[in-house]
């Protein structure tokens, strides 16, 4: 298994309503296998200022969940997508309409920030049955026993499945998304090593990563770094996606 070098996060609807397909094509052109696409939400309780602002801008532009998913329909020039979202917009769509919207898109899995396993069992089972597993999250507060349980509850579909459906998301630090100031990677490195001891599935590490050195450090651990707020901020400044990502893959 070769290491997926970077998992970029893009906010649908930002920096413009039409930007997403082009950005995804850019990521794919760099050989990235997967990307997270954030569905803008009014109350992003797990996000820091950069992604909050991006979400609110996107909503202001009319980036509703339906429109975002429709804009992904039929895309071929895209990495596998992980839909990063809060639960309520999905609930309001309802399972079947959601599945119908997902079907023509490159979305392969969902990361629902505020849906612990078991809170909406039918909804989650329905998604899984239709081929959309939910990504398990592992936080600094997650105890080893709890981590084992979480990985069991949202199991690895196995090496035949794409990265987007297999990986577990390791939350690098306490708090919300956003560029960390001098995040000490020591603790997350230890956690990654411990997790690698209990699971063979790929791991992604996110929250607060931005500089190439941090990203490299994560890769050194054999995990995929996630780049979110820093990327969104760069794109807002008008930098081309290629430039934004290239330096961070190296």
């Amino acid at each position, binding site marked *: 298994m070769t290491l997926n070098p970077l998992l970029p996060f893009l906010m649908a609807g930002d920096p413009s309503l039409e930007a997403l397909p082009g950005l995804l094509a850019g990521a794919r052109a760099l050989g990235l296998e997967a990307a997270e696409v954030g569905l803008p939400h009014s109350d992003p309780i797990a996000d820091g200022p950069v992604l909050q602002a991006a979400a609110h801008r996107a909503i202001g532009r009319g980036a509703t969940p339906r429109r975002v998913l429709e804009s992904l329909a039929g895309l071929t020039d895209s990495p596998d997508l992980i839909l990063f979202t809060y639960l309520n917009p999905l609930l*309001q769509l309802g399972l079947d309409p959601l599945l119908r919207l997902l079907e023509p898109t490159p979305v392969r899995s969902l990361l629902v920030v505020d849906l612990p396993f078991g809170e909406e069992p039918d909804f989650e089972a329905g998604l899984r049955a239709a081929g959309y597993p939910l990504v398990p999250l592992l936080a*600094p507060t997650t105890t080893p026993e709890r981590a084992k349980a*979480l990985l069991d509850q949202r199991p690895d579909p196995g090496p035949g499945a794409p990265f987007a459906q297999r990986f577990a998301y390791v939350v690098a630090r*306490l708090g919300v998304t956003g560029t960390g100031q001098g995040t000490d990677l020591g603790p997350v490195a230890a956690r990654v090593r411990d997790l690698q001891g209990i699971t063979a599935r790929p791991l992604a590490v996110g929250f607060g990563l931005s500089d190439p050195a941090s990203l490299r450090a994560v890769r050194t651990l054999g995990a995929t770094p996630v780049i979110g707020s820093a990327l969104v901020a760069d794109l807002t400044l008008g930098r081309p996606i290629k430039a934004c990502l290239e330096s961070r893959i190296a």
Partner: protein
Amino acid sequence: MNDAFVLPTRFGARGLGGCYAPETLMQPLLDLEAAFRAAMEDSGFQAELKAELRHFVGRPTPLTPAPRLAAKLGLKALYLKREDLAHTGAHKINNALAQALLARRMGRTEIIAETGAGQHGVATAAACARLGLRCTVYMGVTDMARQAPNVARMRLFGATVQPVEAGQGTLKEAVNEALRAWAGRCTEAHYILGSALGPHPFPTLVRSFQTVIGEEARAQVLEQTGALPEAVVACAGGGSNGLGLLVPFAGDGLRRMAVEAGGHGRALGEHAARLDGGRMGVLHGCRTLLLQDAHGHTAETASVSAGLDYPALGPELAALVLDGTVDARRASDEEALAAARLLCETEGILPALESSHALALLPALAAEGVASVLLGLSGRGDKDLSTYQSRLEL
């Protein structure tokens, strides 16, 4: 993973509540439930809480007969449960103090809280000062402006008030920001949520610390009159004073009523009446009735009262209403203001704008033939003086 909780996490036939929290907060929430259960079984904690409620908060608060207002409205009898006389001026202190004691018992040295009307923030700041805990309160900038006296009070109590600029600058945004802050400091800090909402175990915890209101009121009305009233009424923001008052009357077969903010109109964005404008959804960690647009984005709300303009009703109270054991009504801004003035003039009691919504239901109850009412006066109106002055042209 919600099976790791011991207490029921869901309310009513439609399973409201739950624990829709980011993974970072799951272990803190599990720990909180465990600490709460242990404290509730610890007679030492119970004695400490009871002593503080009595000697610091001033419990029991009185039950005041309001004969002149009753006569004016055509009621035979009206009793007011006087949470306005609790220390810091509202029922919020019951919960804030209890959670602060719990946090100290858990070894936390730092408290995070959100506030809308400022009453919960003031109560939390006071409880933290009393117990020597560091306190940060998140408050929307709109609320900071309209409840300025409470901002000053929090600061006097040594709390840091963090302005929240996002959105409408009201309670919902303050909760967002408090949850974010807690996720960042959850190993040192306890989050004192101010109403019966949020992820499990908060709704249960807050309700448990507020039922002292109804327990006292029930005993008092029996002592004073030998009988129970025909109806018990409270206002409903998140639902904490409502549950606190209404739950202890559950087995009594009387009418239990919750009054939401009707604001200034019936369109989405003009009120905060979740029970007749809301749809089931998930916000801030729980499934409940929610004012939202078609896309699942939380809707804006409007109310003259900063404490009632939260877009979601706490899950337990929502469940009681949906299951038909509590009636929900709405009162408009104008009705609440008029009711406040009437209470002032007939009984010499200045109600909080929130509580005035409960008062505003009384004419309708009288018209429906209800003879005796026990009403939860959740707080005093000092914080609302500038609104009363401008809206009532004093």
